[in-house]
């Protein structure tokens, strides 16, 4: 039987087990929306801006390990979606973005709502397709899902002209697919794995450093087993939080620009470094030349060969799925009587404990003003560490990462790579939809939240009881912090004048708003908010305007050249 392109697309999505599509209709996708309307398997979530659609699909994927799907129209629909696509690309999130396009005979004619979608998105997708013939549609969708989820994951875009979604073709969905040009190495080299284990067993000052790859590949359990087996210290990147339990005594906290003193010191001073699903980026190791000055052996496990020896030369590269490689390492260690030499490991731990005594995350607990760190700590207590936390970008993001102890993967959802303000709220929508009974919190700031605040309307429509924790310091806090440190206190355009009344704004959208101005009211307000299980509650915490994020490795400095709170 012949089906239209739109019908074929919906069938393909059903075949892939897609339950939610996040989108916004428009001329070029009307055929597709009409088919969505006629069925009930694939549910559609109507956002208020295409950026929100892609972030929501992204949050959905990050929290559930499924592919996020977004659907937008041509032209401005696509350009609005680009920020979301680039966000997902930088953090390797498996997504399929379906875009409408003007009819094939209008392509290149500067038609209404036309843009070169594959051209615009080419640098920020894993791959993209323009489907020019309806007979290619099903196989293209299959390819898109296959590419998005295999190897290093990422967003894949399928651009469908309006005449293609209208045209008829025989439908059959391929069961499997192979591409001669795409064969990612997925199994780590056995010899290299043995060599790595040998190096780990001989280490005197070992350190384990893991990133988003552990979370994405569902390797947290394997990692935890290996680290506990070896008794080594472990740090996570911003993207890797939850990859190793934060409450485990072997966890030294996040590393990097705003990492803990002990993690950064241990990274610099270790003799063997095991890097897993992480990419030594500038926010993590600071200045690579400084990092390289210390003599250490580096083992690097990653699915992407181009991540290896990109910024830092490594000694034992292992390309493959990190979970399989870690499992293999556990097997080798378990089956051998050899264990790391206890004496040097003990003195290494003693050194780390000494670094920990700096208490680098200390802050003024007696302040009469609400300290943002205090809000996150209370949030951790009230949610018993079991919430999904999304964030936007800036100081609040760092405080959430530093003070909320993530024991499980996929609980911390933030834009680490691209650093997209406006990510938090729409991402939380995706998280809440796929985890309907979970506590979902968007930790944000008064600047970030306004970048996608229109999605409060979507939350109302779909009854998403997200808790928005707004750390409101009336500044673009991270910008202000840099201006204070490096630009002589000249706060150029970082002050948020004329803020809305967030309580009234939340109420206008049909939600509950609360304004909290005293430290003594923080816990009560949080408890009250979480008691309202069916409602979105917007908590506007008026926080200390002068608070900064510490420790801090200034841009371009070495990892151990940290500014600590006490030094100012």
């Amino acid at each position, binding site marked *: 039987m012949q089906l239209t392109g739109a019908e074929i697309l919906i069938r393909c999505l059903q075949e892939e087990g897609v339950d939610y599509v996040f989108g916004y209709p428009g001329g070029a996708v009307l055929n597709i929306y009409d088919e969505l309307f006629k069925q009930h398997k694939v549910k559609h979530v109507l956002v208020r801006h295409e950026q929100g659609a892609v972030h929501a699909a992204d949050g959905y994927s990050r929290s559930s390990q499924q592919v996020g799907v977004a659907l937008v129209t041509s032209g401005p629909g696509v350009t609005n979606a680009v920020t979301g696509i680039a966000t997902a690309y930088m953090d390797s999130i498996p997504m399929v973005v379906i875009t409408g396009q003007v009819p094939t005979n209008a392509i290149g004619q500067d038609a209404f709502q036309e843009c070169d979608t594959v051209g615009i998105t080419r640098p920020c997708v894993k791959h993209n397709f323009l489907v020019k013939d309806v007979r290619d549609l099903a196989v293209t969708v299959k390819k898109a899902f296959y590419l998005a989820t295999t190897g290093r994951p990422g967003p894949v875009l399928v651009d469908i002209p309006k005449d293609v979604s209208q045209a008829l073709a025989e439908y059959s969905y391929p069961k499997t697919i192979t*591409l001669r040009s795409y064969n990612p190495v997925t199994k780590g080299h056995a010899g290299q794995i043995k060599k790595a284990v040998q190096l780990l067993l001989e280490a005197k000052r070992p350190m384990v450093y893991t990133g988003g790859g552990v979370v994405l590949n569902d390797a947290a359990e394997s990692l935890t087993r290996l680290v506990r087996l070896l008794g080594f210290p472990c740090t996570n990147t911003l993207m890797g939080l939850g990859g190793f339990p934060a409450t485990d005594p072997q966890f030294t906290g996040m590393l990097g620009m705003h990492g803990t003193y002990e993690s950064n010191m241990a990274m610099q001073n270790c003799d063997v470094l095991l890097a897993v699903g992480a990419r030594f980026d500038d926010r993590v190791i600071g200045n690579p030349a400084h990092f390289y000055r210390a003599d250490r052996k580096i083992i690097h496990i990653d699915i992407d060969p181009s991540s290896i020896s990109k910024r830092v*030369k490594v000694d034992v590269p292992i390309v493959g799925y990190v979970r399989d490689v870690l499992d293999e390492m556990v097997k080798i260690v378990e089956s051998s009587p050899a264990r790391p030499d206890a004496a040097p490991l003990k003195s290494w731990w003693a050194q780390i404990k000494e670094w920990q005594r700096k208490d680098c995350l200390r802050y003024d607990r007696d302040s009469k003003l609400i300290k943002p760190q205090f809000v996150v700590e209370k949030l951790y207590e009230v949610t018993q560490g079991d919430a999904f936390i999304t964030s936007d970008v800036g100081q609040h993001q760092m405080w959430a990462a530093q003070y909320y102890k993530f024991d499980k993967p996929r609980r911390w959802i933030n834009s680490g790579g691209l650093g997209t303000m406006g990510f938090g709220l729409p991402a939380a929508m995706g998280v809440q939809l796929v985890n309907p009974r979970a506590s979902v919190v968007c930790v944000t700031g008064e600047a970030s939240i306004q970048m996608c605040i229109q999605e409060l309307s979507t939350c109302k429509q779909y009854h998403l009881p997200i808790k928005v924790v707004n750390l409101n310091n009336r500044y673009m806090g991270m910008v202000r912090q840099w201006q204070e440190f490096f630009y002589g206190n000249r706060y150029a355009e970082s002050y948020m004048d004329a803020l809305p009344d967030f309580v009234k704004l939340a109420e206008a959208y049909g939600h509950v708003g609360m304004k909290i101005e005293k430290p003594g009211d923080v816990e009560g307000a949080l408890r009250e908010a979480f008691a309202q299980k069916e409602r979105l509650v917007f908590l506007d915490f008026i926080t200390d305007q002068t608070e900064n994020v510490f420790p801090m490795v200034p841009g371009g400095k070495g990892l151990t050249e940290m500014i600590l709170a006490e030094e100012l």
Partner: protein
Amino acid sequence: MRHILSILVENEAGALSRISGLFSARGYNIESLTVAPTEDPTMSRMTIVTSGSDDVVEQITKQLNKLVEVVKVVDLTEGNHIERELMLVKVRAAGKDRDEMKRLADIFRGRILDVTDKSYTIELTGTGSKLDAFLQAIEPGVILETVRTGASGIGRGERILRI
């Protein structure tokens, strides 16, 4: 260091943009780029001449391999290889220059493809440096127009690039 990369790539719309876009986005050099379909029309072969340190060229190779449409990448300069470039050059050939130009073309094993009473169009094949040498050998004033293809390359002997 100069490197010649041979790339087998799916003969699909957009593949060239992906590759050239990669070079510009990551700040890599392209000295020349040539591309045409192979004996298998579904596949194109591209030769890119680039320059950079070993680390940079290693990254270029890895990044190229990451592109979904790229089937295979080989750095020809890692081993023995042959490299050729084609140039067409139109020169003024009148009066006393006319015989001299013919002689020079012969010395460089060039062929004259087109003749008018005032000009020759000469075809020349060789390495880039041979083509440069020819242009240096003739007076700059007589060159009317040049067009070069950029280098194509292939491995010597048993070195074969195919899928």
